[in-house]
């Protein structure tokens, strides 16, 4: 009887593992500000939340459709400056502005994606890098609108009625709620038939097409989805910090985002959270990393891609899965 109970429990845990993990993470984040009320640390975890949103979308694009983008800091910038201009210059209320900007960025991604996603490999990397470069230059040069090199300040905080998200603790709850929602949506997507089609596409385009996956359309859809997530993260970034500088959206930000994806691992949604966390925190932990940040990130990127091309976390997970399966065969044979 007790064995039956135990098996039932294990079955329940296995069946609802994703939901339970998300629940666990949500609970941990709920109590986190009670244990840690240092505004600096909270500011750092808030930044992780914002980066995680971009990385989730980018990982869907890189890890699930097998493409590459070195331009997502561009979409991040469009979201951030879009929200800033919409609320400060045009005087729109912040919440509808976020939705409107996300919609516009989605359309821009569609317009960029349709021609650019005909390319693959290095060419795609160059094209997206070029896109990022164009956005960055526009931010610098068009100073009547973007404030130019001196940045854009005075962006209002988000608020629900009189309740303004203006302290680190309040932002913690807002940002992590959005991040968890995005996490949940991504997890749902990859566990569906559509997600399997995307995984197939990342594995082998010809085979995926033969199984009924519209490869061209799938790439564009995921590209647009990842751009919309980046835009959403950008808007939250603008409203959280109140100040934007073009330096935050250069091509090195794009490579940092790709490094986060690679650390987390291709096609690993949970890994994305880890990658975003590690790369955001790393320069803060060790001073050396702050000075030579780009070198350190570059080295990490090269080492991971050389030894674990599927990415750090998912590469290790794959290795463990293979070990376990091989062990089981051996036991079965013995």
């Amino acid at each position, binding site marked *: 009887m007790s064995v039956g109970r135990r098996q039932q429990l294990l079955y329940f845990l296995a069946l609802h593992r994703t939901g339970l993990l998300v629940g666990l993470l949500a609970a941990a984040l709920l109590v986190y500000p009670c244990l840690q009320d240092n505004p600096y640390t909270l500011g750092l975890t808030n930044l992780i939340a914002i980066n995680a949103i971009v990385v989730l979308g980018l990982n869907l694009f890189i890890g699930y459709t097998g493409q590459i983008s070195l331009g997502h800091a561009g979409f991040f910038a469009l979201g951030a400056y879009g929200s800033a201009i919409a609320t400060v210059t045009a005087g729109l209320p912040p919440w509808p502005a976020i939705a409107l900007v996300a919609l516009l960025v989605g359309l821009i991604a569609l317009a960029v994606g349709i021609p650019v996603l005909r390319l693959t490999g290095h060419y795609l990397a160059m094209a997206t890098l070029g896109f990022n470069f164009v956005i960055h230059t526009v931010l610098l040069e068009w100073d009547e609108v973007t404030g130019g090199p001196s940045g854009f300040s005075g962006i209002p905080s988000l608020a629900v009625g009189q309740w303004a998200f203006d302290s680190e603790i309040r932002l913690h709850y807002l940002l992590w709620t959005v991040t968890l929602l995005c996490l949940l949506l991504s997890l749902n997507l990859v566990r569906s038939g559509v997600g399997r089609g995307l995984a197939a596409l990342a594995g082998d385009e010809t085979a995926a097409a033969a*199984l009924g996956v519209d490869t061209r359309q799938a790439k564009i859809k995921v590209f647009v989805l990842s751009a919309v997530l980046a835009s959403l993260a950008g808007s939250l970034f603008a409203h959280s910090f109140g100040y934007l500088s073009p330096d935050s959206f250069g091509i090195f930000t794009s490579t940092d985002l790709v490094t986060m994806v690679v650390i987390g691992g291709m096609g690993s949604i949970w890994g994305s959270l880890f990658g975003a966390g590690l790369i955001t925190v790393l320069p803060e932990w060790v001073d050396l990393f702050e000075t030579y940040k780009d070198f350190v990130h570059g080295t990490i990127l090269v080492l991971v891609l050389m030894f674990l091309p599927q990415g750090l976390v998912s590469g290790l997970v794959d290795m463990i899965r293979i070990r376990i399966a091989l062990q089981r065969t051996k036991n079965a044979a013995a």
Partner: protein
Amino acid sequence: MLRLDGISRHFGGLPALDGVSFTVPRGRVTALIGPNGAGKSTLINCITGADQPTGGAVVFQGRDITGLPAHRISRLGIARTFQNLRVFPRLSVLDNVLCGLTGQGGQSMIMAMLRLPSLRHRERLLRLRAMAALDCYQLGDKATWPAAILPYGDRKRVELARATVSRPDLLLLDEPVAGLNADETAGVGEQLKRLRAGGHTILLIEHDMTLVMEIADQVVVLDSGRCIAVGTPAEVRRNPVVLEAYLGQTEACA
């Protein structure tokens, strides 16, 4: 079921296929044989949309499908396996087979992200079907394994399971027993017979003549991109043109 009407495929000036015409009758096994380089795989690619014919027409169930993209053709009910295996190594065996049900899993990305109860229910049904397909190929106990560590013979069977799980109207098999030992070949032969008994229509490319003679209802012989003979296995076996293509000039042998 499937009618090919003068299919040609030229690579530059070189004809890989030159006016190939034959029909694949419903519920039968048609074997496509021919020496290496005869254009068999090119023909399969032209039927499934992985490659576009430069001339001629492919008609499937009365509908002209020439030049349609591969995913549209797949959704019409044509499934295939590949000569050089295309199993997804990082996915589990079960997920590989579930990929064969992509068409039934829903197309909308937004619905997938919301994961409504109806979608969960459908996912469970698909999972059951995939498990049943794995059981057919004696792979049930390896369902959770990553496909990368499967031995070659098992990967071949995973591909077969992936191609058959959606119960396609037409199944194109590109050398399903190539590289398998005698036992494994016999096993796949049994599977093919079972598929045929289940009413599947199969177009089979194969070099293993014992297998072809055993299960084919109709044999089509390609040589240098041309269809040189069509008939029952017994007829084709006696056809002097076919013997010449395979063995060279008969006079030279005599």
